[in-house]
């Protein structure tokens, strides 16, 4: 189960990054020459890479006829950790902004900003793949349900199968 291992790594890394980010905001840590500065950025980039792998694995599972039913657990984990990742990145971004700009810092900020944008992009990809239900359809269906207007699946199937192929695509 590659995905399960990947998700376990993702969760561990995400928690570690959160701890680091929380403890990182000491003034001396955010100095560009500080080893903590480098390692915090590196940690964020590694978290970005794991997020990419986890989101890609989840999207592959969602569109896979055999695996889609197993996707709920993976979705739950990826959404939770992606949300944590965005919080971590926001925290680091604030600290970077507060530290100001100088050439070494500016370069790191640019790399970090690109990684942050990438993380937000994964959130969008998930939202696009799993959009919310349309309440208007639900309301209409409820009215139809009360009126007993639904069709049994076997009848829908029989109707579709009896249609001339030329009438469909």
């Amino acid at each position, binding site marked *: 189960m590659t995905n399960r291992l990947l998700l376990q790594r993702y969760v561990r890394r995400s928690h570690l990054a959160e701890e680091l980010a929380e403890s990182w905001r000491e003034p001396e840590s955010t100095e560009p020459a500080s080893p903590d500065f480098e390692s915090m950025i590196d940690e964020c980039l590694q978290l970005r890479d794991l997020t990419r792998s986890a989101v890609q694995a989840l999207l592959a599972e969602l*569109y896979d006829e055999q695996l889609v039913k197993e996707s709920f657990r993976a979705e739950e984990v990826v959404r939770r950790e992606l949300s944590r990742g965005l919080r971590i990145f926001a925290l680091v971004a604030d600290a970077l902004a507060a530290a100001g700009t100088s050439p070494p810092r500016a370069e790191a900020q640019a790399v970090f900003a690109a990684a942050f944008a990438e993380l937000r992009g994964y959130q969008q990809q998930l939202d696009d793949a799993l959009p919310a239900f349309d309440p208007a*359809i639900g309301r209409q269906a409820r009215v139809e*349900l009360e009126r007993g207007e639904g*069709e049994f*699946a076997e009848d829908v*199937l029989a109707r*579709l199968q009896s249609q001339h192929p030329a009438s469909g695509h």
Partner: protein
Amino acid sequence: MCLPAFRVNIQPAVIKALGFADLSRTALVRLVAKLLTELPGDVGALRHRRLPDDPDCFEYRVAIYDQDQPERPRRFLFRFAVNDTRSPDVLFLVNVRFSSKPWQPEP
């Protein structure tokens, strides 16, 4: 112990929404066939996935590859809201949402 044999009942609003997916007829037949044959057997495993906005329903997902429109083969993900509280032996499909992406079938 004899498990209940569920029937699957689809509301017209859901059938209409499925039409917007622009599936080939073959893929649509496969989708409805999956709902007919697989959903009743999956209820036990998936009914705890209640919808926060509508706890009378759980979410059911079906993925379909549509390769019968050769100019644009696509993968679809359908998510259904299934009401399993209204009747002990009928599953009512009361909402659907789909997303799709291009699919490059193996040569």
